[in-house]
């Protein structure tokens, strides 16, 4: 796809999901927690487009309600790494020296651990749950932002306009924040989009394994785990929440591709 199409399509998907996340009560046809013993394990139909589970809860409403937690994961699991990584990358890329050499070793070390294994190991130490998952992802994920930022800044610091700023006697903070950061930010923003898709995949995986969001928190991975034992008799309980994950992933990827095109970022 060329031009604005990916950005528009991705944006539309994300907007719809955001609407579900912010106003689940308005969008969802039923109360996601309400039991209905007259409609147990109903297959998808007119009354319940995604069917119902073993308590008669409406799967569509539960999937919509879960968007709140999953979009929260996309945001909270990436903001820490974005901020810390950008700051570290900006500093080591601009000043170089010992800090940069140390940073290089840290990157080499972190990429040696399988990301998921390291996150799971940290969650094992801290205990399962969303809060600890954010801590674990932030502790590891900042490295990837910092590596990207460092590369950008190293190119920019030799540019004429940075030298001009120095000649004009601008302070270092002003040069870094007003002149280097805005020019280095585009690839980071595009990566941030992709990373949000990865965060939802990671968050739902940990939720499925029982290490992320804890029931009764409605999260797509937790919903799928709830439905997995019913799969042969009532496939819809687990299948539809999965559609939501795939849709969110496609939304963030398209938005990322569109942004890369718009901002002229090569990947």
């Amino acid at each position: 796809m060329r031009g604005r199409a990916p950005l528009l399509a991705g944006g539309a998907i994300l907007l719809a999901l955001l609407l579900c996340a912010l106003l689940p009560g308005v969008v969802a046809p039923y109360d996601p927690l309400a039991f209905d013993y007259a409609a147990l394990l109903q297959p998808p139909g007119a009354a319940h487009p995604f069917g119902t589970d073993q308590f008669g809860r409406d799967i569509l409403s539960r999937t919509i309600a879960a968007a709140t937690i999953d979009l929260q994961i996309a945001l909270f699991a990436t903001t820490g790494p974005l901020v810390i990584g950008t700051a570290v990358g900006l500093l080591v890329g601009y000043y170089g020296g010992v800090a940069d050499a140390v940073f290089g070793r840290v990157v080499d070390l972190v990429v040696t651990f399988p990301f998921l294994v390291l996150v799971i190991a940290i969650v094992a130490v801290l205990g399962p749950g969303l809060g600890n998952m954010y801590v674990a992802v932030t502790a590891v994920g900042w490295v990837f932002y910092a590596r990207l930022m460092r590369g950008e800044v190293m190119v920019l610091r030799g540019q004429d306009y940075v030298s001009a700023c120095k000649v004009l006697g601008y302070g270092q903070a002003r040069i870094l924040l007003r002149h280097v950061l805005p020019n280095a930010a585009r690839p980071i923003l595009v990566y941030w989009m992709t990373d949000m898709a990865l965060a939802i995949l990671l968050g739902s995986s940990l939720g499925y394994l029982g290490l992320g969001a804890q029931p009764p928190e409605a999260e797509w991975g937790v919903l799928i785990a709830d439905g997995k034992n019913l799969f042969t008799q009532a496939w819809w309980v687990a299948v539809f929440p999965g559609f939501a994950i795939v849709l969110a992933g496609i939304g963030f990827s398209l938005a990322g591709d569109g942004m890369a095109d718009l901002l002229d970022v090569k990947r």
Partner: protein
Amino acid sequence: MNRAGLVAARLLQIVPTFLAIGAVVFVLARLLPGDPVSAMLGDRATDEAVTRLRGAMGLDEPVWAQFLLFVGGIARGEFGTSTAMRVPVTALVLERLPATLMLTALATLLAVTIAVPLAFVAATQAGRWPDLLIRAVFQVGLSSPIFYVGLVLLTVFAAGLRWFPVGGYGTGLAEHLHHLLLPAVTLALSFSAVIMRNLRASILGVLTAEFVDFARSKGLPRRVVLLRHVLRNALLSTVTLVGLHVGALLGGAVITESVFAVPGVGRLMVDSIFARDYPVIQALTLVLAVIVSLAFLATDLVQMWLDPRLAR
């Protein structure tokens, strides 16, 4: 530096890497809430038993001495005893490792087999419908979580059609393959999407290289140019990608093994977290990182061999 020197230097780099991996795992273990001894012995341990184990584990020593003790133990292959299963951790890990290695190897093989021809088609048809279709399908694959794909495949092909066993690993090579095929397909799906994207871009890059124009202007048939000149050069980046992706595959194996009840180290890791079996978690984190660092080493060596310019 000559080629042998470069190879030797790269081989030596593995020593500080191993030490650093050990340090990270050591620090992680120290972050555990509470005393590891009371965690291992439980609440009802006598004071005498606690003191004895503290002494035996060297917990009365200063931190640096504890680290040396820890590294020495690993060097001798001693990871302590599993608190949940009461067996030596080393034996447990060695028993579970083959299933995981076979699963990841099979998944890599499948991913490459799927991705290479499709990337070739997508790149040579760039912008036309086969390209768009292939990229759209792989985009969905890339956005599908492993546990979800696994669950659907498990239900359809194992529980429903009964073509494959529902879980486990079996005995003997043929049974292993039969048990691991569905998990491997699950694990291969997102990986093949990554390879496809990368190789497609790489082929498109090589297509515009001067040596390709030259090969064409020599009057070589299109098929020869594409296979011998374009694909061969583009595949270099795929080799690197596979090497760099070993960690992601092992992470994916943790999830896949949990879905398909494969008795590998990934499932062991998840079970150990719920059992609070810290010696096992510690050993697995370390072993998996060591495997990844060895994969990086192998990738670098293969690259030097494939592209002699790197070893000059």
